[in-house]
């Protein structure tokens, strides 16, 4: 188990992610409550596709960003991901909770080299990844 503030500190200060967006989900309540406006920015999105678009746009400007979402919505963004992010190799990080709907991660390259929480990191291609945060890992 890891403290949410340490999670943000690692992601924002060490890895340089400062632009976050997504759809609020109950499982990430602790993460939302510990967000700090002095070193990160969170934008609530209309849906997951818009969230992905926002982070892709920020990525084009050289700002590292991530989408916080539930694994249940992963199918919704598949078309956008394939037609834009993978096609143009635009990097993106998904922070996903998959307790109730586990992702079929065997199709991706799995690693824990991001070294955050010892959580699984599934690489969609060489620049995009899913950071899987299991329930109860963050407090």
């Amino acid at each position, binding site marked *: 188990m890891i403290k949410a503030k340490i999670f943000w500190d690692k992601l924002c200060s060490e890895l340089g992610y400062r632009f976050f967006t997504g759809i609020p989900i109950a499982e990430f309540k602790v993460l939302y409550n510990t967000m700090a406006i002095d070193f990160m920015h969170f934008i609530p999105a209309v849906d997951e596709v818009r969230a992905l678009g926002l982070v892709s746009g920020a990525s*084009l400007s*050289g700002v590292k960003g991530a989408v916080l979402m539930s694994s249940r919505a992963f199918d919704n963004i598949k078309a956008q991901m394939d037609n834009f992010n993978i096609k143009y190799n635009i990097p993106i990080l998904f922070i996903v909770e998959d307790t109730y709907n586990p992702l079929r991660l065997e199709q991706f390259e799995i690693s824990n080299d991001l070294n955050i929480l010892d959580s699984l990191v599934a690489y969609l291609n060489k620049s995009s990844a899913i950071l899987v945060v299991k329930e109860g890992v963050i407090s």
Partner: protein
Amino acid sequence: MNRKKFLNNVKDLVFENDIVFCIGQSLCNEAPELSKGTVFINDTHTDILSVALGVAMTTDKRVLLILEDQYLLSNFNAVFQIAVSKCTNLYLIVATSTLYTHEVAQTNLFNSIRSMVGVLVNTGMLVHEYSKYFETKKSLKLLKDIYSRTIGPVISFVVITNNRLYTTCGDTRNLEELNTLSEFIKDKSLETSLTEVNTPFFNLESIMKDK
């Protein structure tokens, strides 16, 4: 005014260092090179409106989107996101042909909506009608002056007619060209066309500093 003439006129409205997203097959194929930062996206199944919003939030340059009414209808969720963002450097020009595609002369739902302007105004966006301005070079020059001082997010409509597709430029930009565009967006040394009034207040620079 037909689509081809509209696209040629848009060129007069674009400032040198603007970032332009041109979306849709007919617009992409007929549009001239509008600025150094132009990206053409042929594929209408991708949501570029929110990508452009993401760019606008993180740059000090003007971001211009040129799209067709059908694309606006199919990505209307992104309009809500744009409206609440209050991104002062984001501008949309909608070419209203009221057709699904340039190939199928079947009308879409755009004109069936009682008041599209009303819907958009109620989202919080500024809505303009630019059809008259696009008729002559003189009025276009006047519009450019107005445009430089308009505070975004603003959506403007230009009524166009369909024409035979004149393919004047290539297909969707490739990976290399998108990387060039990315470098262009990141280049802070380029002069921006934004004035004091429409400089984005959404400044990520402050939070990009080390904690």
